[in-house]
């Protein structure tokens, strides 16, 4: 085993992990506020990647500049999905029904993407995807660093919004107790809609960075969603800090295991850790067992 490979693994864990954290934050936000598990999050990441692809290939728009278009677009997609489908889900079966409904939505989007873009793999192109810089004697493509800064900036913005604004306070109140939130005048329905929009909007940024660092097609979404789900389960469903911690942990662990042992063991080891953590802390690393009163 060589140490530069290990440094590389750690570096990749933090750089790539932050992007996963961004995508998972959207998922955990939606779950926390609405009790909805959005299985479509994976395909929405791919949708975001394809939108960036179209803008860059057909319109010559830079991947990062294109986010000005793709983030609002996916925000609107989220709002529409929430208004048309999620508001119909009521009662105690809401969470399990949401899995089925969002899975159906995922299949529809997947079919549409296959039709439009074919099933051939593509990857986003830009100078910062091809060119690398040197750190600790390693060559790292610029996109990893840019993607990291993007994720940190967006997570930071989300944090400021949540903890420093009135709207953020209404989200945190709704996260904790919807009835209590409603009784102080928070419009929980509106908060839910906007949270769903925000939760989906982050996939535009996540998808762009993912698509620039990986070859993808629509079916890549299955791998993505299973990773995202395990991240939010490990972090604690509905916990934003937990999603960040678990994402970085997952990617770093996978990379380190691949280096010191074998890539074959990356995923099993992560799931082993997941099982151990959950058996000790069923609520996840940062989660709480009873956030809401029954």
């Amino acid at each position, binding site marked *: 085993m060589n140490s530069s490979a290990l440094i590389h693994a750690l570096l990749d864990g933090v750089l790539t992990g932050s992007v996963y954290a961004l995508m998972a934050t959207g998922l955990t936000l939606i779950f926390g506020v609405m009790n909805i598990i959005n299985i479509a999050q994976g395909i929405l990441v791919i949708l975001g990647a394809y939108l960036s692809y179209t803008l860059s290939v057909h319109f010559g728009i830079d991947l990062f500049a294109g986010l000005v278009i793709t983030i609002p677009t996916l925000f609107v997609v989220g709002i529409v999905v929430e208004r048309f489908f999620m508001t119909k889900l009521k009662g105690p079966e809401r969470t399990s029904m949401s899995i089925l409904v969002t899975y159906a939505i995922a299949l529809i989007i997947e079919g549409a993407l296959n039709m439009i873009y074919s099933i051939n793999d593509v990857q986003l192109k830009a100078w910062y995807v091809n060119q690398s810089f040197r750190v600790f004697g390693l060559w790292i493509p610029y996109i990893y660093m840019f993607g990291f800064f993007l994720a940190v900036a967006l997570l930071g913005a989300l944090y400021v919004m949540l903890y420093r604004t009135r709207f953020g306070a209404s989200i945190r*109140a709704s996260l*904790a107790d919807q009835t209590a939130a*409603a009784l*102080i*005048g928070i419009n929980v329905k509106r908060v839910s809609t906007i949270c769903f929009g925000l939760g989906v909007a982050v996939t535009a940024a996540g998808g762009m960075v993912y698509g620039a660092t990986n070859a993808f097609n629509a079916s890549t979404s299955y791998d993505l969603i299973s990773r995202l789900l395990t991240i939010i389960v490990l972090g604690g469903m509905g916990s934003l800090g937990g999603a960040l911690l678990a994402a970085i942990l997952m990617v770093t662990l996978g990379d380190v295991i691949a280096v010191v042992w074998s890539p074959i063991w990356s995923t099993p080891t992560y799931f082993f850790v997941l099982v151990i953590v959950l058996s000790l802390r069923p609520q996840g690393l940062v989660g709480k067992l009873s956030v809401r*009163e029954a």
Partner: protein
Amino acid sequence: MAESTAFLRFEGIVAGYGGGDVIKGVDFSVPQGGVTCIVGPNGSGKSTLLKVVSGLLRPRLGQLWFKGTPLVGLTPREILQLGVVQVPQNHSLFREMTVEQNVELGAFLLKDRKVIAERLKNVREIFPIVAERAKDKAGSLSGGQQRIVEFARCLMLEPELVVLDEPSMGLDPKTLRLVFDTIKSMNSAGRTVLLVEQNARQALRMSHFAVVLENGLLRLSGSGSEVLNNPEIGALYLGGSIETTSKAVSPAPSEL
């Protein structure tokens, strides 16, 4: 009570949760300026009735008038804006937020920082705990302390009508007295109080008007002492039904 003088009036309210009706047609009026108490056995629909008042539950039939304004169909937010606030049966503080943040959120509907600061100051004077434990997480307070902070939070809107669902639930006798005293002083400060209580005797003693709810229907109503001294209410809580005790005409035992 004449329509014009009714402060809050329930008119043929029928409500439930999708299954059968829980509230099966309730009519009564809450007089302005007093304490009105709803008593009744577990599961009789008291909380359900209060959810109709706060707008959390839309009744299937009937209307609810607050000072002549129909409330049915309004959102909880709109009902708050009319001056009706509610403290629910379960603890409703945001446990991860500080006491002060919780109380400030009581003024969520207000935009003016100056007004909010002014009200926070008033509330601190009435409830010292709001200042003493300002930076502590609400979840770290005892049940009774949380109740007091909930009261403080609900007063931030300076409501005309305060609706309380079993405020004394789970409190020791001393805290219970404090909670009841607080309710009395809220009332003396000019706020009308509508309250559900299981500590029926104590609650009825301070009530100007009271109703007994059984199985979604009103069985009795009258002044606090009338209900307190009615032989049927004792029977209700002993599990008997009104029919079997209706022949009982002897006055209620004096300790009631």
